[in-house]
C-alpha cells in the first residue's frame, strides 16, 4: 500500500507536532454490489495504532463509511528524539508498518 507520511523532522522539546498520514486503500464498505449483483466483500482498515518510542499515542478503530484513501491527522507532544511507528490492519488480515524519525532539540 502506498502511504504519504508527514511528520516534522525536528521539533522542540514539549512542542505539539502535527502528524498526517494518507493511506492508499479502497475502504470497500461491504454494502455495494458489482455489475452481476454479487455483494462486494467488506475490505476496510479496521485498526490503526501510532506509537512514539514504544508508547501508544493513538489507537483508532475504523469502520465502513470512511472514504477510500483515508487521511488521518492528530498531534503528539515531542519529548525525546526517536521514532513514530504506525501500524494498521485491514480485513484481508494484511498489516503494514511505517516509521518516521524525529529529532527533538
Amino acid at each position: 500500500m502506498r502511504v504519504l507520511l508527514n511528520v516534522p523532522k525536528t521539533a522542540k522539546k514539549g512542542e505539539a507536532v502535527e502528524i498526517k498520514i494518507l493511506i492508499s486503500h479502497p475502504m470497500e464498505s461491504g454494502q455495494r454490489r458489482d455489475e452481476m449483483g454479487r455483494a462486494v466483500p467488506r475490505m476496510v482498515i479496521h485498526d490503526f495504532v501510532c506509537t512514539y518510542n514504544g508508547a501508544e499515542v493513538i489507537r483508532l478503530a475504523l469502520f465502513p463509511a470512511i472514504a477510500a484513501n483515508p487521511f488521518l491527522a492528530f498531534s503528539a507532544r515531542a519529548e525525546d528524539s526517536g521514532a513514530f511507528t504506525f501500524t494498521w490492519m485491514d480485513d484481508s488480515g494484511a498489516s503494514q508498518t511505517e516509521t518516521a524519525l524525529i529529532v527533538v532539540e
Partner: protein
Amino acid sequence: MIRRRAALFVAALLLAGAAPRSGHDDASPAVQAMQDDDAENPGMLWVEQGAALWAEGCASCHGTPESVRGVSARYPRYDPALGRPVTLGAQVNQCRARTGQAAWGSDSEEMLSVTALVGRQSRGLPVAIDGSGPAQAWLQQGRALFTERQGQLNLSCAQCHDGLAGQRLGGARIPQGQVNGYPLYRLEWQGLGSLDRRLRNCLAGVRAEPLPPGSPEMAALQFYLGWRSNGLPVETPAVRP
C-alpha cells in the same frame, strides 16, 4: 453619466464572464484545502507511484522528473508529423512504443500515475497550448463538438459550461469545465481519473454516445478544451468534488 457607468459595468461583467476560472475556485473551502496541501492531497499517492514507474521506464532518457517541468502545460500538443493533436498520455505511449515497452490504457493506474507525476512538475505554470497554424482546424472541430447539441437531453457542453457557468445546479456551482488539473482526484470517484473518463461521464450524463478513446473527435475535443484553459495555472493533481 449613469448610463455610461452602467455600460462600463456590463462590459466588466462580460469580461469577467469570459475570463477562464479554475474549478478549484468553485469548489468548497474544504476541497480547496485538500488540493492545496500535498500532505492531504490523495492525488499525491499516484504521483509517488509515478515516481517509481519513472525510475523504471523513463529516467534513463529523461533524467529526473523535474527536467520535464513545463511539458504538461503544452499538452495536448499539435504534432505536425502525425497531423493531429496528441495528448500527454498518447505521447507517453509513443515513447513506450519507441523503446519497446507495452502501451498503457488511458485509465490504467500506470498511465494515471505517470501523467500525474509529469503534470505535477508543471504545477503553477500557465497552460500554454499552441493553437496556431494547421492546429486551427482541430480547434474548430473541437469547438464544434463543444457547442453541438447532443444526446437524448439535447444539450451541448457550451450551454452549461459557457452559458450558465457560475450559476447553480442544485447545491453545486456550475464550473466552466476547465481542464487545468487533469489527471485529478474526484471525491465521487474515490480515485484519480483522466480527462477521457471525465468526458465519458459528461457524454453519458446527457445520454449521448461516448466518444471512442483515441478517436480524432476525442483528440479534437481535448485539444480545444486544453486551449480554452490557456492562462490558468496547472493544478495537477487537482481535487474536485
